[in-house]
């Protein structure tokens, strides 16, 4: 009888889900591509920020969601990208798309350096090392003030139109989603999940855990570097306190975990829902922003550690393994 009653629950099955997601994805993509022709400046502004966080949350998810290694300093890559961009554009007059790419490259290089030192070790060492990373870069930027302008920041030439920022950020978000999709359906992605579920066992199966973790970390840094660069270009002014804000790391983590860690759609779903919620509700309590995020983080871990997608799966509303 128990069987029968659980069958009675309408459930999203594999084939329906594929068709539904493909149609929904195609529609959303077309709509978002066409939006600058009819959307207001406000809508575009909100969407640019949303793209930014989709890109960040999806990237964070590669190292922390798939691999289970918590990166508490991911904002370092974002900030490094922004500063790389600003310095190249203002000091060396590099074309802006190249400067954006350079932001991604430098962020990846930083991830390689940090990863080589602390990914040989277990997760808690990595968490600790990344926790200080954003702060260390902020101190470095402040200290190296004859180049970076220190606490005064860098003023960039204002970009008057929104369209380039809109499509640029959309492209970067698409890149992040594409990367995590490629990871999720590959053997490499399975290795990452195996590491998350039991690193010693994964090693016994012949997975080169250190190399996998290092690749995952580098992959998770490239898009944040580019997103940081585009963000700098979009807002036209960067300074250490806001570009290396702990809140940015918190946001990517919370968005990704809320949707569902280790999935492709989780971080997208989490960002869309929580970002809109944040715009509508939390914006009224600007002084408690960080507090609410902290609370949500604690509640997610205690009440739905697998995120929204995991919760729906456990309730039987989505068949297992359909939504990735």
């Amino acid at each position, binding site marked *: 009888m128990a069987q029968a009653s659980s069958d009675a629950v309408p459930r999203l099955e594999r084939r329906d889900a594929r068709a539904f997601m493909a149609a929904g994805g195609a529609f959303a993509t077309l709509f978002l591509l066409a939006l600058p022709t009819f959307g207001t400046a406000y809508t575009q502004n909100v969407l640019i920020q949303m793209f930014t966080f989709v890109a960040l949350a999806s990237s964070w998810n590669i190292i922390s969601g798939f691999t*289970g*290694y*918590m990166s*508490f300093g991911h904002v370092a890559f974002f900030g490094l990208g922004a500063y790389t961009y600003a310095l190249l554009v203002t000091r060396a007059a590099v074309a802006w798309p190249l400067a954006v790419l350079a932001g991604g490259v430098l962020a990846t290089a930083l991830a390689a350096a*940090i990863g*080589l*030192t*602390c990914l*040989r*070790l*277990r*997760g*808690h*060492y990595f*968490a*600790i*090392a990344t*926790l*200080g*990373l954003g*702060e*260390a870069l902020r*101190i*470095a930027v*402040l*200290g*190296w*003030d004859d180049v970076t302008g220190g606490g005064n920041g860098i003023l960039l030439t204002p970009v008057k139109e929104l369209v380039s920022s809109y499509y640029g950020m959309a492209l970067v978000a698409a890149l992040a989603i594409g990367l995590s999709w490629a990871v999720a359906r590959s053997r490499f992605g399975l290795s990452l999940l195996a590491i998350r579920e039991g690193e010693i066992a994964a090693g016994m199966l012949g997975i080169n855990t250190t190399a996998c973790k290092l690749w995952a970390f580098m992959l998770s840094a490239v898009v944040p570097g580019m997103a940081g660069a585009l963000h700098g270009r979009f807002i036209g002014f960067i300074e250490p306190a806001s570009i290396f804000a*702990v*809140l940015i790391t*918190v946001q990517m*983590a919370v968005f990704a*975990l809320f949707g569902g860690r280790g999935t492709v759609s989780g971080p997208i779903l989490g960002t869309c829902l929580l970002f809109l919620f944040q715009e509508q509700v939390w914006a009224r309590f600007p*002084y*408690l*922003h*960080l*507090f609410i*995020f*902290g*609370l*949500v*983080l*604690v509640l997610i*871990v*205690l009440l739905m*550690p697998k995120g929204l997608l995991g919760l729906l799966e456990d309730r039987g509303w989505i068949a297992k393994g359909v939504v990735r």
Partner: protein
Amino acid sequence: MLSWEYVAQVVVSGLLAGGVYALLAMGLTLIFGVMRVINVAHGEFVIIGAYVTYWAFALAGLSPLVSLVLSIPILFVFGMVLQRVVIKRVIGAPQLSSLLVAFGVSIMIVNVALYVWTGEYRSIPYLEGSLRVGGLAFSRARVVGVVMALLIAAAFFAFLKWGRLGKAIRATAQSREVAAACGINVGRVYTVTFGLGAALAGAAGTLVSFMFSFYPEAGLVYTFKSFAVVILGGMGSYVGALAGGLILGLAEGLSQLFLSSKVGDGVAYVLLVLILLLRPQGLFGGPGE
């Protein structure tokens, strides 16, 4: 250029700060050693201790050393409540859940501190001026701070070594199951341990409050300084924490001398990454993980 006296002064002054760093790390190492929980909210506990001292001084004119009798019990209770309400639920879960929960708690504390006490830099005008020994001058605040830190650490050791509860804590650290089989209430030990770890952080916060200026977000710096000390000395080792603290203090002093004062808190981070690279088990740890 660099006179001998000046170098000696910087070295000793760094070591003095290092004594306080050792106390800073002790609570962290206690909680990790017993509960295997990495408390990333440690620095925020330190900051709460510092603010308790600040307000006791500003509002009631209480001497910062006396306010240890406030900061220690307040943080002890705070730690115990936190353990009962939140941390308890993630012990035994994958280690990363406790990391995330502690991280969430830390940003909540920062936000409340910013909201209630504003982001202004605070410092306590107490024990200003310097102590002259031979041709050298040392900050009085640092000398008193390190003496208090060593006293508190000694009292804590005595408690762990001879106290009944201290023995129970050590037993639980060695083996949770065997301790439970011997009739130790492990849940209660965990609660007290977390409280004690927070209380040690609070005590360190009081000492820090009159040695350095602070603000709500400064907790992050203290968290990773504590981690640097703990990893230098080897996780879970108290003697190691003392040595690690002194090394960090010394490194900060020397880097100010030879590099620039701008590097400041970055030294702890560089040291942390270097030690992870070269000797992750700590200077005194065995082969380990």
